[in-house]
């Protein structure tokens, strides 16, 4: 299949970027990233600068393959990362527009690669369990209600890609932060520090300059792991509980 790509090219954080147009021949069995690999090989053989894009696992679990494809983070397929998106989702002759994540808190490093270390700092502010949780068998010895286990597991599937921020018209990181808060806080080992964790993670999220949630819900639609905004409501509840229910 013959495609036209309009790709955002930007040297570094300081320069202004612009779209450049490329033609590429791909097969519909290729993944989206393989199609970009083909284009990059051509660019390299022509001694041009290849397009910088992030990728690692290419199996939908690492959360680095972050591209906005035709206005949608991770492209048109529901619940799918860019690396798991295949060219059969497109038609011969299509023009595809590829842009980086857009958010103040995710500055562009080069072309389609953005700096997501704001997420790391949110995790560092409380996204862990500091009490001793024992060995694997100790985990199995603690009964967990099935419903809670499912909710915690669903939240734990968040791969930290940032598509939620990219999709949000407010550049808000509520879905990511809420997924982490729920994942840990719903389980007995994480419950101990739940309210304190919620408060410090939300405060860090605000400090990073992410926007305020308006419950638009675009995050939930674009999230490759289909994390529900139910988690955001849970985080709002525990944030208020943390602020009003603690001594600090």
């Amino acid at each position: 299949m013959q495609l036209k790509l309009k790709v955002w090219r930007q040297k570094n954080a300081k320069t202004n970027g612009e779209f450049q147009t490329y033609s590429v021949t791909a097969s519909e069995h290729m993944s989206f990233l393989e199609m970009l690999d083909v284009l990059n090989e051509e660019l390299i053989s022509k001694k041009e600068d290849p397009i910088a894009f992030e990728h690692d696992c290419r199996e939908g679990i690492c959360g680095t393959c972050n591209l906005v494809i035709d206005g949608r983070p991770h492209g048109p397929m529901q619940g799918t990362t860019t690396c798991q998106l295949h060219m059969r989702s497109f038609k011969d002759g299509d023009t595809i527009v590829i842009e980086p994540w857009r958010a103040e808190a995710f500055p562009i490093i080069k072309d389609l690669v953005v700096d997501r270390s704001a997420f790391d700092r949110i995790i560092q502010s409380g996204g862990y369990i500091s009490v001793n949780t024992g060995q694997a068998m100790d985990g199995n010895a603690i009964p967990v209600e099935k419903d809670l286990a499912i909710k915690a597991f669903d939240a734990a599937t968040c791969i930290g890609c940032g598509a939620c921020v990219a999709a949000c018209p407010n550049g808000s990181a509520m879905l990511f932060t809420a997924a982490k808060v729920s994942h840990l806080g719903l389980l007995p080992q994480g419950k101990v520090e739940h309210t304190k964790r919620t408060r410090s993670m939300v405060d860090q999220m605000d400090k990073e300059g992410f926007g305020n949630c308006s419950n638009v819900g675009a995050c939930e639609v674009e999230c490759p792991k289909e994390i529900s905004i139910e988690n955001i409501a849970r985080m709002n509840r525990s944030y208020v509980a943390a602020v009003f229910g603690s001594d600090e």
Partner: protein
Amino acid sequence: MQWILNFLTSSIGKKFVMSFTGLFLISFLIIHLIGNLQLLYSDGGEAFNKYAYFMTSNPLIKTVSIGLYTGILLHAFLGLAIYFKNKKSKGKKYAVSTSANASFAAKQMALLGTLILAFILIHMGDFWFKMKFTDQIIPVDYDGMQVKDLYAQVSTTFSKPFFVGIYILGMIALAFHLWHGFQSAFQTLGLNHKKYTPIIQGLGKIFSILVPAAFALIPILMYLNR
């Protein structure tokens, strides 16, 4: 006390203020609608005028109305402040915009709110301001009780197609604002539940159509029956 300030300036705290003031305004809409439907009685405006007199003279209602003005101002200015902060947080927009992941109403809350604010200013300038601060509204006599004839003022306004149009547009903006806002207020407060959220969303949609439609019906009917 610093913690209260920290809460109110946090992202979630600001949204709590938006949600509470929004819900307060929703409750006001219900009261306001019930009162205004008296405009449609065919009694020459007596019931409505007496009601308007009660609403502007009763001390309890006067106190509540101060809360209402504060609520509107707080909701409007905080809403706009959040809008500008969010615009900055988003940064550059995408070259391709999509409607695949969000509704028009959800994305345009600030625009819809500004339209509502403009409507409220026109509306209050025409009725509330004239009623309270001028002698333009001539009193009528009901069994020795002197009451300003607000009904006559309302009838005059609603005999002009231009004003009827403004009221209809204002109510369309309100309908879209509530289409997203009603259920959003509950989500903000953390009230999300597998069983109850669909009910809240359903009620919100019914409310957001019925209430603005009923408000809009008043000028339309008064115009047709003028």
